[in-house]
């Protein structure tokens, strides 16, 4: 067995807002009819979290589900559980039109945590991050600086960012620079 290594191998920036690369994460891009009960039940049984509504992500540690588009959900499981999960999805959706692909090694996960985490993300993404518009559980696919990224709020002071592995270094430096710049102070709770 080869030794899988994540994009930045747990690189961490410690400051008022901490950025750390979260290591290997199993990710399955699942496309199909999202209204299908079988699809929802296999997703929830694999991850142990509720099926997300539009624009939402539910996560519990390394496991989670994220609403990617009207016909796509991202299934997150432990990195070594992906093959098993793919087999379970194929079994549950047998005969149904769907596509499930292991994209784990194409991606990187960055965790941003701290009191002004909203400011850090808002500096980089064209997204309304006001607490009224983007709260815990909200998920958004957009961009950070010049690269595509998706992120969701795990709680009020913690955001998980997913980007392509090839741009993980850029995304990390970008978040680090935004964190070092300090809070902007436009949001009520920062």
């Amino acid at each position, binding site marked *: 067995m080869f030794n899988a290594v994540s994009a930045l191998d747990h690189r961490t920036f410690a400051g008022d807002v901490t950025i750390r690369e979260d290591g290997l994460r199993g990710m399955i891009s699942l496309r199909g009819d999202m209204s299908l009960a079988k699809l929802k039940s296999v997703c929830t049984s694999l991850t142990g979290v509720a099926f997300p509504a539009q624009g939402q992500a539910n996560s519990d540690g390394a496991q989670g589900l994220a609403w*990617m*588009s009207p016909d796509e959900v991202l299934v997150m499981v432990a990195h070594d559980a992906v093959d098993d999960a793919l087999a379970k999805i194929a079994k549950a959706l047998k005969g149904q039109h769907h596509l499930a692909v292991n994209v784990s090694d194409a991606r990187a996960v960055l965790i941003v945590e701290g009191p002004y985490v909203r400011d850090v993300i808002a500096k980089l993404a064209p997204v*309304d991050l006001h607490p009224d518009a983007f709260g815990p559980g909200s998920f*958004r696919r957009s*961009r950070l600086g010049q690269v595509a990224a998706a992120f969701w709020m795990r709680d009020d002071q913690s955001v998980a960012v997913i980007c392509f592995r090839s741009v993980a270094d850029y995304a990390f430096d970008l978040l680090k620079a935004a964190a070092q710049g300090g809070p902007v102070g436009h949001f009520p709770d920062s």
Partner: protein
Amino acid sequence: MLILHCPNCGQNVDETDLHSGGEAHLKRFGPGSSDQEFEDYLFMRENPKGVHFERWHHSFGCGKWFLAARCTNTLEVFGTYSAQTLEPPKEIIDRIIARRPDWVKGAKT
């Protein structure tokens, strides 16, 4: 800066997250059409100063297409709607007429 509401994922999306797909509601002229019709279909586009219907691709987001009605002059957005429509829905037309009483649908500019 232009912000459009993506009807597919329900988000208000900045222009930089989108890719413009040009004029909407084109009718395709393929095999069997005249040379003039084919040329018009391929190359001739409206370029109005005012109300315009456009295709937009939410390329940094959900990856889906949608259509938008907006004013090219003031950047006012009248509404966005599903790409799976052959012509603008009535509520969009009503909204445009409310804001631009002298606008005529389909008039050449």
